[in-house]
């Protein structure tokens, strides 16, 4: 399986390039949108929420703390939701090609993952530009960010492929997941800090495997804190498990996948 994927590496790379190109090539501002999108979001959320929430952000005295907190969490979530939602629909979108050309189908979610990872890197570069503009320099905990990226990508990829395969057979899966993802977003401390929730609801945040990863982003980019290693055990286990299960599940489903597309 991995050998045939290796044989198709050029196709994968050129597909990722095509995805990126398609996103910006015909807009006037092109790559600038990478910065403008998160900036606009940060501005809107800040205006609406920062006055209310800024005082509650602990362990920091930076005046721009809230926008930075928000952008860090959103960067983590963007990576997760992009891989998840696109893997979920990629088989249906690419059905014509899958039905008529014989090639390793696993290329498709890999292209999705690759595109999302590159988008993430570009987004982080954009964030740094914004941070510098806000007068904030992330500290040396930044070196842990790649761990966050890998774990988020693994969970997103694993869940995405599993749900993507199911979605081929039961098309409601994607519909349900749009709603679930919205709920999930609000059950993750991205827009708000965890401590604003009443104690009895914190359990939900603690059960959420994305929470420690979002926290890792926030720690790395804003608080300059080292995360506790125990907090990463659950996400790492989930990532490994979902990836493994996804690949097994995909291979079992593969013969019937084309039949119902």
């Amino acid at each position, binding site marked *: 399986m991995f050998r045939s994927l290796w044989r198709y590496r*050029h196709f994968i790379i*050129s597909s990722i390039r095509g995805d990126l190109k398609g996103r910006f090539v015909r807009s006037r501002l092109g790559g600038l949108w990478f910065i403008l999108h998160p900036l606009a979001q940060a501005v809107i959320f800040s205006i609406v929420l920062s006055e209310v929430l800024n005082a509650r952000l602990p362990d920091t005295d930076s005046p721009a703390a809230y926008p930075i907190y928000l952008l860090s969490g959103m960067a983590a979530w963007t990576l997760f939701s992009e891989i998840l939602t696109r893997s979920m629909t990629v088989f249906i979108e690419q059905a014509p*090609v899958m039905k*008529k050309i014989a*090639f390793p189908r696993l290329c498709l979610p890999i292209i999705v993952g690759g595109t999302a990872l590159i988008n993430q890197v570009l987004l982080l570069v954009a964030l740094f530009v914004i941070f510098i503009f806000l007068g904030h320099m992330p500290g040396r905990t930044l070196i842990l960010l790649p761990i966050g990226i890998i774990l988020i990508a693994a969970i997103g990829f694993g869940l995405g492929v599993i749900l993507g395969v199911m979605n081929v057979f039961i098309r409601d899966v994607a519909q349900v997941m749009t709603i679930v993802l919205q709920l999930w977003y609000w059950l993750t401390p991205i827009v708000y800090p965890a401590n604003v929730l009443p104690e009895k609801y914190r359990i939900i945040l603690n059960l959420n495997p994305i929470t420690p990863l979002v926290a890792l982003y926030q720690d790395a980019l804003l608080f300059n804190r080292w995360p506790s290693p125990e907090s990463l055990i659950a996400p790492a286990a989930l990532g490994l498990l979902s990836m493994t299960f996804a690949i097994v599940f995909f291979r*079992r489903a593969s013969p019937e996948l084309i039949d119902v597309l």
Partner: protein
Amino acid sequence: MTVLSVSHLSKRYVNYASNLERFAGWFGAVVKPSEEFWPVKDVSFSLAAGEALGLIGQNGAGKSTLLKLITGTVRPTEGMAHVGGRISAILELGLGFNPEFTGRQNAFHAGGLMGLSQARLTELMPHIEDFAEIGEFFDHPLRTYSSGMQARLAFALATAERPEVLIVDEVLSVGDSYFQHKSFDRIRSFRAAGTSIILVTHSLGDVRTLCDRVILLDKGHVLKDGPPDEVVDYYNALIAAKENAKLSVEQRRSKEGWLYTRSGTFEAHVKEITLLSEATREPVATAMVGQDLILRVIAQADVDLPRLVLGIMLRDRTGHVVWGTNTWHTKQIAEDVKAGEVVAADVSFRCLLGPGSYSFSPALTSMDTHLDQNYEWSDNALVFDVMNADRAFFLGTTAIEAKFDIQRRPASAGVDRVKMTISCRDTDAIDKVPNAGSIEHSDEGRVQIMHNGLKVVAGGYHGEWMERIIYELRGHHEPQEELVFHALLAYCRPGSLFVELGAFWSYYSLWFLRAIPGSTAICVEPDPKNLEMGRRNAALNGYADRIQFVPGWVGETAASSHEAVAESVGKPVALEMLDMTSIADLAGGRAVEILHIDAQGAELGFLRSMATATQTGKVRFLVVSTHHVSISGSPTTHADCVAEIVRQNGKILCEHHVEESFSGDGLIVAVFNSGDCGITLPQISRNTAESSLFGVSR
């Protein structure tokens, strides 16, 4: 050799009561599907290299699924399809293209999707660019392409590399006709190189013309597997049987897209309409171009009619009227037709239609148009196919009797030399065959026709410029020498012997053999390639057994071995050296009727060895080509040869210098028998030193 073998291939689609059961099934749980469907069931066939297989069947017969099973996008439930090599499927053009990429980037991208490596694609890229013929657009984004350009690029990519099996699914109807032809040409050349083709189409005409075998699929089974006409007729019958059940419907569209409509007062009706072969009187569903046919229309009146006019209209696939008339125009109106009376008409005609599908629409009216009284009008009541079996391929709906008259003219190499030689018109008066000088293609390759109808390998004697001279002079190459040679032949006796020394292409020998009944020839030539050319020319005309070919040098004194440079070999060749005594030995005591010497400078030496032979009457006519100093090494070769002949009591009938030649060499024609001294040869024209081949040499 089998390149594709499909054995007991089956595909099952299943549905489960719930998808959870389906998922559980993947992990080993035994689940019974709630329903199953076999689009392909137990299909077996094998395909040999270079075979073209047509796959036909109604929608839902399993064609697409079978293709997907063969290409490997769908996995078989049972059985297997084994492909011995690369398989390429053109199921849809332009799959995997990205509109933002340029043509080149897309070729790399989609080529990668097809499983070609980047290195291979880099190699193939110039060919892809060449074949697509989209010019600078190749480096423009795909979104700026017209759909035709996209199809060109896609086809060029899909066929960049010759696969062992090529699957084509009715996609070639895209693009302009030029490109369609080009595409078909490529497919044909693939096939010639051993690629097997699987063509899936609804066009039964294509199946007949392109395939040498057809498989008819029905409900996933192979219903019939055999030669095209057999399977297609079977298929047509199958459809007819299916449709007969619902004939009461007044309008319906047939499988091939023909719309059948019946309208009118129905006071009369066509009972039967059949197309018959004139020769056999048997019904035909597929007619051949040029076949004599009869359209039989049997009409019956249902009430008493004052007049009954029968009209027929022939339409092509697109609905254009090809031809039509009625019995009003032909003045064959049936008057006072009683109820129940039958009017039968046989319309005989020759099928001068192009390959394709056509229909006949009969009309029963009271006058020349159906607007007056329309009893019955049935559009496309009879549909038939025309195929081109024995005529050259042509396009269109009309078989016009056209003929190409092709002449091939040699390239204009060695222009000055050609001009010099063809400025001499001495041979114009000699009778010629109609196609003299032309180049024809035969099983032996390109051959040129000489004035007397002899065939020679085109370009075999000195190449293109000589080919041009022979073309311009209509089958002659040395006008002066040929004029006198032609005259000399009139004196030659049946059964006599011709000897050609320096017989590059053995042409004079062949000419002699053709002109003189029962004659034989000996050709002596040192250069192995030239000797081979002489042999080929002899074989071309069936004279191989009348010529004895002898490799050897000629000169004054015989020697068992002599070394000299042969032109085509470029280095010394050791061969026997022959003098006149050796030639006489070869002749076995017979006299030589014509001794023809063109020995590249060795002529004087050989002449010196002839004294005995000429005195004993062993040589009758002598034709000598004398050579320029640059070849013979002596500026006086010609004069010396003349003197030597005179010394042997020869009489010079005709001679010209190198400088007077329109070809290159000087010429001496002499006789040695007193009885021949009175022969007069025709006057030859003479070149001037300034315009001769070697210019002024003094």
